[in-house]
């Protein structure tokens, strides 16, 4: 069959199969820290320079207004420690291909100019990267000297060595409290 247009038992089984193979940490874990302390850490660690919550903050990284409803505590803690690992995927799930979000690329144009950024859009002939300053670069692939994925990389620094385990838990507790911040 080429695909499906109504959800049948079979397709429900597909969805179950899909969920089974998803990142097991996506919706798991319990926030054990103090969200108030975590909020202070968020503000003092410079997070808002890149992330937006309820309309306040930067726009280089993903918006966090509803991050507590979208991710689990284990996942968020892992992201703070190793931001480029285990990136989330979006797409059609069981019925098609999912795509990695926030994947970094290193592009070299024909004149030698280097563009490094997070993929925000791509098709077979073009790619749009967002650089560390939040600027978009639309590139025509056939004109590039090279285009390489950089799995594991991220513009976000790791907080693995700069925050204690307790501070990480506090920050995660704060992020988990963001269900739909206004």
């Amino acid at each position, binding site marked *: 069959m080429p695909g499906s247009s109504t959800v049948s038992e079979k397709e429900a089984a597909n969805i179950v199969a899909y969920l089974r193979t998803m990142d097991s940490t996506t919706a798991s874990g319990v926030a054990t820290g103090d969200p108030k302390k975590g909020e202070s850490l968020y503000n003092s660690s410079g997070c808002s320079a890149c992330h937006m919550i309820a309309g306040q903050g930067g726009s280089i990284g993903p918006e966090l207004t509803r991050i507590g409803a979208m991710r689990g505590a284990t996942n968020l803690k892992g992201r703070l420690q190793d931001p480029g690992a285990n990136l989330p995927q979006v797409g059609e799930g069981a019925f098609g291909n999912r795509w990695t979000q926030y994947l970094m690329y290193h592009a070299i144009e024909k004149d030698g100019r280097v563009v490094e950024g997070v993929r925000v859009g791509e098709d*077979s002939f073009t790619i749009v990267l967002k650089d560390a300053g939040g600027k978009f670069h639309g590139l025509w692939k056939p004109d590039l000297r090279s285009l390489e994925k950089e799995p594991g990389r991220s513009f976000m620094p790791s907080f693995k060595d700069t925050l204690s385990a307790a501070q990480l838990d506090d920050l995660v507790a704060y992020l988990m409290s963001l269900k739909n911040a206004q």
Partner: protein
Amino acid sequence: MKISLYALVFVVSLLSAPARLLAQDVSYEQLLHADATPQDWLMYGGDYQSQRFSRLTQINRENVHRLKPAWMYQPNHPLQPFETSPVVVSGIMYVTEPLSTVTALDARLGTKIWSWTPHLPEKIYTVGVHRSNRGVAVLNNTVYVETLDAHLVALDATTGAVKWTVHVDENDRGYAMTGAPRVLDGKIIVGISGGDVGIRGFVDAYDAKTGKRLWRVWTIPSPGEPGSETWGKDMSGTGGAGTWGTGSYDPELNLLYWTTGNPAPDYNGHNREGDNLYSDSLLAINPDTGKMKWYFQFTPHDTHDWDAIQVPVLFDETVDGKPRKFLALANRNGFYYVLDRATGEYVTGVPFVTQTWAKGLDKKGRPILLPNTEPTPEGSLVYPDGHGGTNWNSPSYSPQTKLFYVSAREVGAYTVAGEPKVHFPDFGGGGRNALSGDDGYGAIRALDVMTGKLKWEYRMLAPTEASTLATAGGLVFSGTDEGNFFALDAANGKLLWEFTVGGANSESNLITYEVDGKQYLIGASGNCFVAFSLP
């Protein structure tokens, strides 16, 4: 008799300019020699060989970079897959729109001439079936279309008026129709969808004038018939093996080549021990009698949903000084096959994408299975995924380059065995979980038609289900999953032109035609049907 100047001008204009719009008749003789009128695109696949090769050369490798949109058309029922392969006759284009609408357009202007939509029931069973339609067939002054609720309808080509309707089978038992019919001399050949919900597949022939059914070839034998022993028990009522592609035809051999889909339930074979004939097979049928002359099964006892409904491409070649008749098919299971189309003898078979389920094919073309590739409750990673190394989308063949052009899908999936469910509409046996798009890719691959050896490839971002179109202008056209149309040099795969439409899934079958001395290319992407021409 007094005739005003105005009336005279009117009569003269009716006799001259619109003549192009009043010549929709297509004789069987024309269909037999479709390559003699390359300005038309007379049938699914372009000709009876399904080569999808156009002899038009106005758009060619030197000027294709200047190709621009000429017009666009949008269907009435958006947000459903737009998979039509248009038929063009003397400047009139017949397209199908989701769900089962037929529209006649002026092929030069894109202007709608008439449109016909069937009265479909509120509840239509299309489990495992795209709610789409892949095109019409035209014979004499009649347009034939299959409807989602499993009817075959004959329409007047000039007005869209219904000439006759036949009820092919029971939609409330899962039988649905989405394909393009194949017309022969006075016969309309159709297949059926619904193989995933336990129908019993068939190929039917109907009288073109009256709609009377002439014969039916079942794809699953009745108890006691040859092949019935390959199911372990009587599965003749629910074994699937749909026939939702469109077959090819050799008038000299008088053989119709029609392909069949997966056995049901799809991902769990415990309920159907054996090869499950004639699922995932190619059937060679005498269209006069409805008798099967030979068959070839690609994937015995399929548990990965690898319908073999890909288009059989017919080609002739001289081997050891002797002219031979062959058939090429790039299968969803990842192998490219060449068969002797007179006898059904297996000639060659090689993988055209990564495949991890078979060590290879034996001397008769039967796959030599590798261990641990069956679906499991936890999921078993197998290449290609369930959508296959390629799918329903047509390949093309250029007699100039002797290359077979196929949109290849490089991606695997975890195949999961579930509890077999065998009571309609609760039918199935598991599912699949495709890998990330970043772990796969699509490619247009040019294969040596006789050996299947890769000559060149052009990579795309995503595994794609788009047709290819080869032309005498030295070009291969195709589309991407992300909504781009593009042209490659047929000889070496170099990118020569690209146009972004933006709608996902450029899945329709691209065709080309000529009106008033101008060549057009047309295809659908998302909900938009776009015609291109040189400025």
